[in-house]
């Protein structure tokens, strides 16, 4: 599957995401980085908006990246049903862009945290969750300083009612004060998914878990069918 991984000035995990795309594709090297000024996504079957500190996280995490030319193209790609995965900073960018509901606030304890943790797969209907069962637990590292998922009460209710929760932190493992333990959500259509934890850092055995591969493999059959 041909993924495009966005690269902003200040991105950190874009090569890791590219690496995960390749491993998920059985080592086939057909994915590439997409420079933030690019607007032509033709030929790409999926987009990853990666983690890091795009534009230094100045103003607010993700607030500047949403204005990049590449994000305009990603919005069109998503509107056409293309699968878009936002990880950490990428999740923040997608929320800032309005492609996903809610917002990410500074962690309750204000400190950066980095640790391996467990997620519970939600009920959302998304190609990214194709290889996972609702209620299944997966081990994925999280690392962020602004990962506290927030939505006003009526929006939160809507997200829950429409089954847009993709992942929750396992009971007792919510690291940041996220509402309803939410670690990741999808858009209504399910083709855009954002999460704070880092599936691209759970793809090789030496790192302790390969549970993250499922997210990168999920959309493959659909993309293959479309192609």
């Amino acid at each position, binding site marked *: 599957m041909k993924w495009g991984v966005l690269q902003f*000035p*200040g*991105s*950190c*995990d874009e*090569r*890791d995401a590219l*690496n995960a795309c390749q491993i998920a594709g059985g080592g086939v090297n057909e994915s590439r980085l997409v420079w933030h000024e690019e607007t032509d996504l033709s030929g790409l079957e999926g987009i990853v908006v990666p*983690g*890091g*500190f795009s*534009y*230094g*996280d*100045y103003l607010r995490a993700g607030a500047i990246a949403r204005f990049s030319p590449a994000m305009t193209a990603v919005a069109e790609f998503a509107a056409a049903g293309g699968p878009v995965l936002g990880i950490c900073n990428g999740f923040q960018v997608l929320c800032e862009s309005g492609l996903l509901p809610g917002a990410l606030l*500074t962690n309750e*304890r*204000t*400190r*950066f*945290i*980095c*640790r391996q943790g467990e997620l519970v797969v939600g009920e959302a209907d998304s190609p990214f969750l194709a290889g996972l069962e609702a209620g299944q637990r997966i081990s994925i*590292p999280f*690392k962020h*300083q602004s990962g506290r998922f927030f939505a006003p009460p009526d929006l939160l209710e809507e997200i829950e009612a429409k089954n847009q929760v993709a992942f929750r932190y396992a009971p007792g493992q919510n690291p940041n004060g996220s509402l309803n333990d939410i670690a990741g959500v999808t858009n209504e259509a399910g083709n855009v998914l954002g999460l704070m934890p*880092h599936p*691209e*850092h759970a*793809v*090789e*055995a*030496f*790192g302790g878990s390969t549970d993250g591969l499922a997210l990168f493999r999920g959309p493959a059959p659909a993309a293959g069918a479309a192609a």
Partner: protein
Amino acid sequence: MSEATHRELGLTDGEFELICEKMGREPNGVELAMFSLLWSEHCAYKHSRKLLKNLPTEGPRVVMGPGENAGAVDIGNGYSVAFKVESHNHPSAVEPFQGAATGVGGILRDVIALGARPIAILDSLRFGEPDTERTHYLVDGVVRGIGHYGNSMGIPTVGGEIYFEPPYEQNPLVNAMCVGLARTDEMVRAAAAGAGNKVVLFGSLTGRDGIGGASVLASAELDEGDDAKRPTVQIGDPFEESKLLECCQELLAEDLLVSLQDLGAAGLTSSAGEMASAGGTGIDIDIGLVPLREADMEPFEIMVSESQERMLAVVEPDKVDQVLALCTKWQTASSVIGEVTDSGTFRILKHGETVGEIRVDDLVDGCPLYDLDPQEPAEWTYANRETIEADASPSDIALSLLASPSIASKRWAFDQYDSIVGSRTVHRAGTADAAVLNIPESNRAIAISIDGNGRRVACDPFQGTVEATLECAANLAVVGAEPLGVTNCLNFGNPEKPGVAWQLGRAVDGLAAACNALEAPVVGGNVSLYNETPQGPIYPTPVVGMVGELPDPAHVAGEGWRGGDAIALVGPFDPSLAGSELEKQRGQLGKGLPEGEIAPVKAAIELVREAVRSGAIRTATDVSDGGITTALAELAIGSGVGCEADLHPVMARRSDNPEDALFGEGPGGFVLAGEKAELEKLGGRGVDFELIGEVKGNEVIVKAGDARVEILVEEAAAAFDSLEDRIESDQAGLTH
């Protein structure tokens, strides 16, 4: 800032006279400012350079040695790893967050300047005891500062160590080590070459921050009024450096640079001067072409500004446009500010008019080197403080050691660092004695360790430094790695004082002896002197960083043991309470450590390495602070399973004092666990080997003669995890 006299700038009368003699006239203000920085201790190593000549620096794997921005060793398949450790102690004492952040930023640039991509950061930190508000403030700021810079850059912080000792209360140590990966044939040196080639400055704008940092802060003792020196601390911007890193990588990949140098202490003066010196050239810099943050800066301010996130490159004239275009792509400012000449002179111009002119040799190599006047102190010169009850039982002592700030878990700190970005981290901080990074480019992994127990070095500078070096090699051995090279940071007090001079000389001798024995060349390092306050000097603290290689990251012994495993003690471990954590708690520290031979320790290191590589041994750790009992308890805490061990064989063979066996420290001891039959294969191999117990139950039981430690694993874990609550800053919750 107005122009100052030579004394205000830290030059002695004799040095000033020498400058006048070399120039044949008195220097003007710009020239004097430049001399004062390059002739400072921080830049000229004038009190340590003679000693450092004794260190072994050569070996078959050395690609770059001392004198370059960082050292580098070959790891095969066309790749090298570059690494260096550097201090940012005084800036961190004055402003901990920015001091630590820019310390990380500075060491990253050293590695970037070689053409390497940084792949790991480790930190060695020293603070006063965690029961004071000052320590809370410093720890909070330093840990946040390190995290802020490394996390934002996307470089994992994979390890490090933190010790808490009273002599560091006013003068904390912040040593940061960076390891980078480069294709050997793409690495670039810092030597200017080719008269007529252009000098390009790129990165952040040049401002007034950090003016005189190297001479004002780094080359003098700290005293009361140091808050007023905050303006001499630089401000870091990791976003700028992130762009700078990617920009440098692309410039080198496109083969657009003749040479590259970062701007650190002493700014343009040092970078341009050292480039010309290394290349045997001259250099012209026109400060009228330097992009400034503030319009009205004086020539000397531009020349000595320590604004962060800047690099200097030498570029062939026909490649300048491509270089500037790539800088624009990465949104980093760039400007041609000068030219390489064959004059041998460093000329400072302002819009074409000469405002300063110094012979490169005089500036860079002209500083007099001083002999030290060492004298061994007759007595223990540091304070002692009793913090444990005289009649504490062995079990109470064991818990007290686990809760000791220097031994207790530092997970609260490591959890604030991104340890996995880059997708190479096999073992992150706190999960093994050494960090392990996968290097698929050369089909192997590297292991990195950093160590330096200042208290033991204070007891005996030679033996303490030997032990720090052996400890690094032991940490590598337990993950199956063998040493490739060493970097070091020598943190000491005022070398003009005879007692400190003696510590420094003996420590360098110890480092040389251990590195020679291990055949591990010293490929780079840093010296930080004048670490003292009116309360006295710090413990002498040589921090040793070691990089090694291992063939297969899949065969890395984890620290977790399993019920039923047998436990063995391997190596010529001869424990003593001298200089130990227990002796500190009893307020009985004094001069001297038992002397030991290095060769038998080396043999044990090799045996353990081989055993781990074979995959037969699941669990290996070296015996370090707090002795065997602490090592066993830490393994039990890590896996949740207890153990029962009898140290009778240790006592029979060595000291018959139970406390020595239970809590004594010293080099050369390894605890291994695994299947008994596999462990027994390690006996009879010329290295001391004893089976001492079994993994079982929910208690840590360790017997030595009549003495018996018996504690629940959960009690041990509670003690081991107790530091976070004690260290939590009164300012927690404030973000930067």
